């Protein structure tokens, strides 16, 4: 709040009202509703609900299928985060280093940011199409029969590839602007002290980029958890069947296809707790982060 603020009462209330009403109706009410229904068992035909306490949670944690989805989600998130961060970092370091053409490369490497995940997924379907997709044919040359939507691991690999592709641009933009904000004097001093490019990178550049990298780590985890829904839906063509899926996709499948309101809400609550833990972790680390510049 500014020291020299205005002293009216009605105006700020009028200004805040629309925002508060919208988040009250479309955020707090649904969130509380989710917590409440996670303790109830809904009749699939709409004849009321029964209180089951922690029953829905116990069912989830003892379900082999839920655990399988959780394990896949962790692996998928880890792989996508690692791959897209490291590829973007290499590209950003090179784009920052060259003297001419940085802007051109920046444009070429960032526009995919605007490609919607489900459309990326659809292009992925065409590229990995069973039998005649370009990647399928390329892999067939090496004697591997890639079967999207049939083989669990093939589908998972396609998901990781498309998600990584779709998420390199954000990481690239942040890494590049992080690199460009390192003062020239620091770079020159490093140049004098250490002639080896790799040594300079690990001793100087990387620590300076660490806050950016950590922030991106959180962004990537949230992306892989939540924003990949459309991409996965495209790749499995709306038929989860035996295919891999993430926790968010399962919330949707159980809630809207399976009509299991209680189970789906319990999954929502578990995800809420997960996000809260991530955020608290983020703030704790961000508070302690060291600024060199």
């Amino acid at each position, binding site marked *: 709040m500014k020291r020299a603020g205005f002293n009216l009462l009605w105006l700020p209330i009028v200004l805040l009202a629309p925002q508060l009403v919208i*988040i009250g109706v479309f955020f707090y009410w649904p969130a509380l509703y989710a917590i409440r229904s996670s303790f109830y068992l809904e009749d699939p035909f709409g004849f009321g609900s029964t209180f089951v306490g922690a029953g829905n949670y116990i069912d989830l944690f003892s379900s082999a299928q839920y655990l399988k989805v959780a394990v896949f989600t962790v692996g998928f998130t880890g792989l996508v985060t690692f791959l897209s961060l490291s590829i973007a970092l290499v590209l950003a370091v090179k784009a920052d280093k060259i003297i001419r053409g940085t802007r051109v490369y920046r444009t070429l490497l*960032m*526009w*995919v940011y605007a490609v919607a995940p*489900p*459309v990326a997924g*659809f292009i992925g379907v065409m590229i990995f199409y069973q039998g005649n997709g370009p990647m399928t044919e390329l892999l067939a040359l090496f004697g591997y029969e890639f079967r999207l939507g049939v083989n669990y691991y093939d589908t998972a690999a396609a998901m990781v590839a498309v998600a990584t592709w779709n998420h390199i641009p954000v990481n690239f933009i942040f890494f590049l602007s992080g690199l460009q904000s390192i003062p020239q004097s620091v770079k020159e001093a490093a140049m004098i002290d250490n002639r080896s490019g790799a040594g300079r990178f690990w001793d100087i550049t990387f620590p300076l980029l660490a806050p950016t990298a950590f922030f991106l780590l959180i962004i990537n985890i949230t992306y892989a958890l939540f924003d990949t829904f459309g991409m996965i839906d495209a790749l499995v063509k709306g038929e989860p069947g035996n295919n891999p899926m993430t926790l968010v996709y399962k919330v949707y499948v159980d809630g*809207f296809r399976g009509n299991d*309101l209680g189970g789906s809400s319990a999954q929502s609550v578990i995800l809420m707790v997960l*996000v809260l833990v991530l955020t608290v972790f983020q703030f704790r680390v961000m508070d302690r982060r060291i600024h060199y510049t």
Partner: protein
Amino acid sequence: MTAAADPVLVATSRVRRKLSWQTIADHAILIAGSLLMILPVFAAFMTIGASDVDISRHGMQFTDGSHLAENFSKALFIQGGFTGAITGSTMLLNSFILGIGFAIGKIVFGMMAAYAIVYFRLRFATFAFWVIFTTLLLPLEVRILPTYEVVHGMGLINTYTGLIVPLVASATATFFFRQFFLSIPEELVEAARIDGAGPVKFFIDILVPLSRTMIAAIFIIMFVYGWNQYLWPTLITTDEAMFTLVRGIKQIYQSIDGGSDIPEFGRALALAFIAILPPVLVVVIFQSWFVKGLVESDK
């Protein structure tokens, strides 16, 4: 002594030569990266020119352009879907309504709330701040089913209000504007008060013009975000006349495996092209604003 034998000159030319190899390697990596980004989309869009029969027999095509116009006109003007009520141009219009409506909603409500929080002495300002900023923690995807139930209960299924307003219920824009307002010097509001400007005049005549670049940057980010929404539109629009492009493409390519006819690959790919083009153009054309907004907003 000739120049070639001069040890100093030899040394510098060797350094220069080594440097240039290094530069070539750097460019090679960047070109490989750019190709990785471009080729999948390029391959998909070259295929639009081929006929459905060829695509389904031989996969993606790169040289056949004979069906280009046909596939685009099918995508834009031929009615499709289950009820036959939807054309590509209707979906395009709906996508624009969602993208622009969402961006404007975010900016208007966000600026108003941020102004109230930053510039007024309010007892419950801190409370309002926390109530609003908690929403940053939980994305819509997490609370999707209960939100659907609430919107369904209000009878907002298949309306633009039901499509846009629940997406606006998060504090991202408020947060950006709060950060920005806090960075504006204190003296500005003092000077405005001395000159007799009231809070409304100060907001409209000073703060809004000052925020122009910020508004533009946030508009771009939010437009792309709104345009690319998928899960929420999938749930909330069951009437095909309400479909957006990103949501509607699924309807066409899902018949790829379902129907006994030859699937309409060309049409689906043409629609994908139309769905990708506007957000990509916005991001590329307004690149510097977009990058600035994106990077600064998240600090």
